[in-house]
């Protein structure tokens, strides 16, 4: 119990005194997760739309596979991305290992199935008449997709928020691909893991609370997107 209280106090202290290590980790977290979210949304929204709206053979199987990928262990993703980015790997020359963009690749892979699966569910859940209505108003395939996604925005928001939660809390990829390098690729979660490993439980809890605070800020920023979408 003490750890929790101490952690709370410690969290405020770290933020108040602008602790450079904490802020460096926060920056790394924000950077890599932003990149990862951007990539996974850009890819995942259209793919999820196709998965939810299309009527092609094998669609159900594909959904099952995407759903299965929701259970991709982060360490597995970390290992696979590592295998590619390692100097000995096929993409070793890119020099992405132990960098934030490299880490973002792995996190985007983690987020992609979440965005896809939840986008598909959101699109499927829309009123059947929406697609017909858009076509009767003259929408092209692209306009249909865009408007459909916009009408499903509540569901997409849920998709994004969920994917964000995953990305921002994962440790496996950040350890393996990022490398938890101080001042460089140490994210808040790897810092928590490190502190916890050292037995600095209160410090770990403090960092966890700070991460939650970051998520709260992001979600407060999203509140207004929720407005106007329901009566």
């Amino acid at each position: 119990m003490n750890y929790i209280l101490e952690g709370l106090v410690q969290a405020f202290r770290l933020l108040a005194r602008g602790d450079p290590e904490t802020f460096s980790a926060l920056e790394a977290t924000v950077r890599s997760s932003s990149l990862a979210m951007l990539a996974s949304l850009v890819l995942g929204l259209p793919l999820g739309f196709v998965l939810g709206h299309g009527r092609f053979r094998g669609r159900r199987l594909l959904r099952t596979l995407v759903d299965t990928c929701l259970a991709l262990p982060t360490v597995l993703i970390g290992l696979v991305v590592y295998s590619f980015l390692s100097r000995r790997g096929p993409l070793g020359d890119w020099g992405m290992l132990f960098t934030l963009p490299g880490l973002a690749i792995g996190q985007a892979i983690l987020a992609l199935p979440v965005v896809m699966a939840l986008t598909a569910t959101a699109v499927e859940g829309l009123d059947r008449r929406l697609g017909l209505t858009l076509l009767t108003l003259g929408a092209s395939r692209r306009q249909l997709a865009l408007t459909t996604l916009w009408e499903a925005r509540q569901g997409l928001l849920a998709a994004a928020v969920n994917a964000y939660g995953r990305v921002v809390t994962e440790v496996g990829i950040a350890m393996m691909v990022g490398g938890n390098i101080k001042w460089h690729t140490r994210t808040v979660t790897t810092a928590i893991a490190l502190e916890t490993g050292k037995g600095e439980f209160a410090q770990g809890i403090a960092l966890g609370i700070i991460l939650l605070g970051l998520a709260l800020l992001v979600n407060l920023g999203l509140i207004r997107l929720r407005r106007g979408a329901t009566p």
Partner: protein
Amino acid sequence: AGGQLMMATTTSTDDTGLLNYLAPIFQKETGIELKWTATGTGKALELGKNCDVDVVLVHAPGAEKKFVESGAGVNRRQVMYNDFVLLGPADDPAGIKGKTMAQALASLRQHKAIFVSRGDKSGTHMMELGLWKKAGEQVPDKESWYVQAGQGMYKTLILASEKKGYTLCDRGTFFKFEADNQGHPPLVVLLEGEPELLNQYSVIEVNPAACPKAKQDLAKRFSDWLASPHGQKLMADFKVYGKQLFTPNAQ
């Protein structure tokens, strides 16, 4: 001067704060920025094998030798050591206090006293496995009293104290544990100081023949710097909770 040196090391060097202490001094004196990833010993060596780091600093002599023999590393240099202690509950139900290591292990088995092993192929775990071997004992893999944690040292200590068991621990982590428990830890040192409990750290440069892109020049500068009298003195001066932790022993 300048440049970045990438190192893979075991968690203990990072957790104790040694690297946080050495790296800025090293950078000030040589202009080289030391970046490190702290992981299990096995993974650190594997990263070296894959040319993803330029230098490794680890403590598992057997694995290190294989690493060098396989051609992945060159110029293995012992730089320092600390030591392990055998911890247990103060009431010592297996009665190992004052015994030799071999007697102690036999007694643990006899009493089926809970023993928490790191179980993660870390330097500490390798040391423990070696101790069983030297004592002529089978590693009690499936015995119910032999708990294999597969975790870092500190969490293993927690596990041991929750289970009121014995465990092997490096002295640095024990200092921390002791301090966190206001000097009255639930586990106390029952056996220490035996020569086989020494924990030797070595620095190994990644073999440039295998890894053309490895920054061997920087790696060698670092290795030399650690082994230099200046580096060795810095190590000796490093204190945790006011106590010296590492003993420099570069030849």
